[in-house]
């Protein structure tokens, strides 16, 4: 009796592990070619469309270069969950790791260990405080430029006359703060528009809605709102609808995930500033391979933006930039 259980348990464990092996065999590119570099992309969090789109770009570039690319991610965007993932990948010793560090400080020890193990690092989207030392290349959107782009779109949508408001997430997030900063600089170039400052939504649509209705009461000439992330823009739209001002006030949102695109289709927001995560992934793979071949690399790459509106969202030169849920 006992012997049978023992055998059963071990067999079960082996079977589980073997299943894993099969998965990898099916998913990975076939081996055999000489000088085939192995790359791993460690995203900031599982299942986020921004990172999925980045993954798609990276996979295309890896296939084109004849390299293998594996993708993994922590459950939440947090350093304490990303560290074990980085450590496991380092144990596997790929030639290069593309990683979106989840914390500018906390990810330094595991990534230093990775570099010490002889693995080339490329940082995608986010970085660490000493990113210039650790990574061969750092690739990210220029969020200030994204904010400037939003200001230009809003100036156009509103006809350049009236008050404009920023609904930001919360203080201390480098990306959204940079968007708001770029917006503030650029909006001042349109003399007819009066910038009335930024409000924080704490990433809650209902807070954004309340702040929006309050701003409407204080500034009846409000004509435009820039929501620096999904919930800020959606909350602002809810506030406008409940105040009956949806026709008069235009909203520019950020990012182009399926939810944001749906909002655009339904006319809840009038324009989206889309980042180019696929370009980030592609550039990441290219820089990693250049570093592995000993060719010159670009230390810093800033990727651009696309302005998406209801009118142009199906254009062949805009559609590819909408974020994907799968490749």
């Amino acid at each position, binding site marked *: *009796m006992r012997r049978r*259980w*023992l055998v*059963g*348990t*071990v*067999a*079960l*464990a*082996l079977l*589980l*592990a*073997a299943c*894993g*092996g099969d*998965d*990898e065999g099916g*998913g*990975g590119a076939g081996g055999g070619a000489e000088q085939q570099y192995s790359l791993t992309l460690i995203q900031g969090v*599982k*299942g986020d469309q921004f990172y999925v789109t980045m993954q798609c770009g990276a996979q295309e570039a890896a296939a084109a270069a004849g390299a293998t690319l*594996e*993708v*993994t*991610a922590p*459950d*939440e*965007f*947090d*350093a*304490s*969950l990303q*560290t*074990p*993932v980085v*450590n*496991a*990948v*380092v*144990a*596997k*010793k790929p030639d290069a790791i593309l990683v979106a560090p989840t*914390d500018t*400080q*906390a990810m330094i*020890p595991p990534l230093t260990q990775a570099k010490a*193990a002889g693995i080339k690092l490329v940082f995608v989207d986010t970085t660490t405080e000493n990113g210039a030392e650790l990574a061969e290349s750092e690739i990210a959107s220029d969020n200030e430029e994204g904010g400037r782009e939003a200001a230009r779109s809003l100036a156009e949508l509103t006809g350049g006359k009236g008050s404009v408001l920023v609904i930001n997430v*919360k*203080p*201390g997030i480098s990306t959204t703060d940079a968007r708001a900063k770029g917006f503030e600089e650029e909006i001042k170039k349109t003399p007819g528009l009066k910038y009335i400052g930024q409000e924080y939504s*704490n990433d809650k649509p209902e807070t954004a809605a309340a702040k929006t209705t309050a701003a409407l009461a204080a500034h009846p000439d409000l004509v435009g709102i820039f929501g620096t992330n999904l919930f800020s823009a959606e909350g602002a739209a809810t506030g406008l609808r409940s105040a009956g001002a949806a026709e008069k006030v235009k909203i520019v949102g950020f990012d182009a995930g399926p939810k944001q695109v749906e909002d655009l289709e339904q006319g809840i927001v009038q324009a989206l500033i889309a980042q180019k995560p696929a370009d980030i992934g592609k550039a990441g793979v290219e820089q990693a391979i250049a570093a592995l071949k000993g060719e010159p690399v670009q230390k810093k790459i800033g990727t651009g933006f696309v302005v998406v509106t209801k009118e142009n969202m199906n254009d062949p030169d805009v559609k590819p930039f909408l974020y994907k849920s799968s490749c």
Partner: protein
Amino acid sequence: MSDLTEVTAADEEPAEASEPSGVRAALRRRLTETTTWTFLILLGIVAGFAALRFQQFATVFNFRNIAADASGLLIIAVGMTFVIITAGIDLSVGSVLVFSGVIAAKVMLAIGGGGWGAIAAGLVAGLVAGTAWGVVNGVLVTKARVPPLIVTLGTLGMALGSALLITGGIDVRGVPLQLTTTIGIGQLAGVPYVVIIAAAVTAVGAVTLSMTRFGRYTYAIGSNAEAARRAGINVDRHLIKVYALSGFLAGMAGMVSLARFATTTIGGHSTDNLAAIAAVVLGGTSLFGGIGTVLGTVVGVFIPAILQNGFVILGVQPFWQQVAVGAVLIIAVYIDQLKRRAQERGERR
């Protein structure tokens, strides 16, 4: 479910029997067998991954990292073992961990200077904060007679909410660098300090549970609280101590996390409570109380940790990892149940 209850009821019989020493021996025999069992599963998993990816998986480097990554959870799970053996539960551990980390970081920053004095003050403050939440849990469970599930669900929200209030929702950074370079990532003879700390906590926890009066009271209350009371054990005071211990260890895990990451990692501990409970149950501890070992919990902590590591090395799609870890949890407990049932039948005959 009914099988589970049946087994527990059967397990409680010996506690009420008249001959304590024979009962204890029988109980211990059963416990060690349970632990051996899960340990075999752990060995099987390790053997499986080693067979598939020996050079990547079975390295000192990899095992050192797995141990360091699991150290925080192990410390929490030791406290959780005590709580669950009393037939209680502590859902607040992840939040208490974050709260303690925030308090410790704030104290270190307030004192400033970056010396060991500031670090020590911060660590003490963090441990006190964790213990305080534990005492709150214990008092509410015993004196206010609110079920542990509800009490600790409440303090889960309160501790995390307080931490967010103090920090404004943004991770506290800038703790003294020595903390990270020594305790956080330093090693003694190739073993990371955080692993040594976790091992020490585990050893003390195992000895306390199996060999001291504190441990015996813990089992007794979990088996039958009323019987324990009639036998002269101050059940309320002991339960408060057990919850305080869980809070203290959550605080200690918070210090380990702070030392490793140099920041408070507010967003990363929302499922620590479930991970700890899963580890304790995987290790053969009964959710109905009265049965369990710290050694089993160690095995229970490492099964998911090694699965995650191995799956990343094999390159399994990230979402499958969650599915597999969940499945292994159920399979392991199922095998354990089957075995216990077979044993019950054997004993009755």
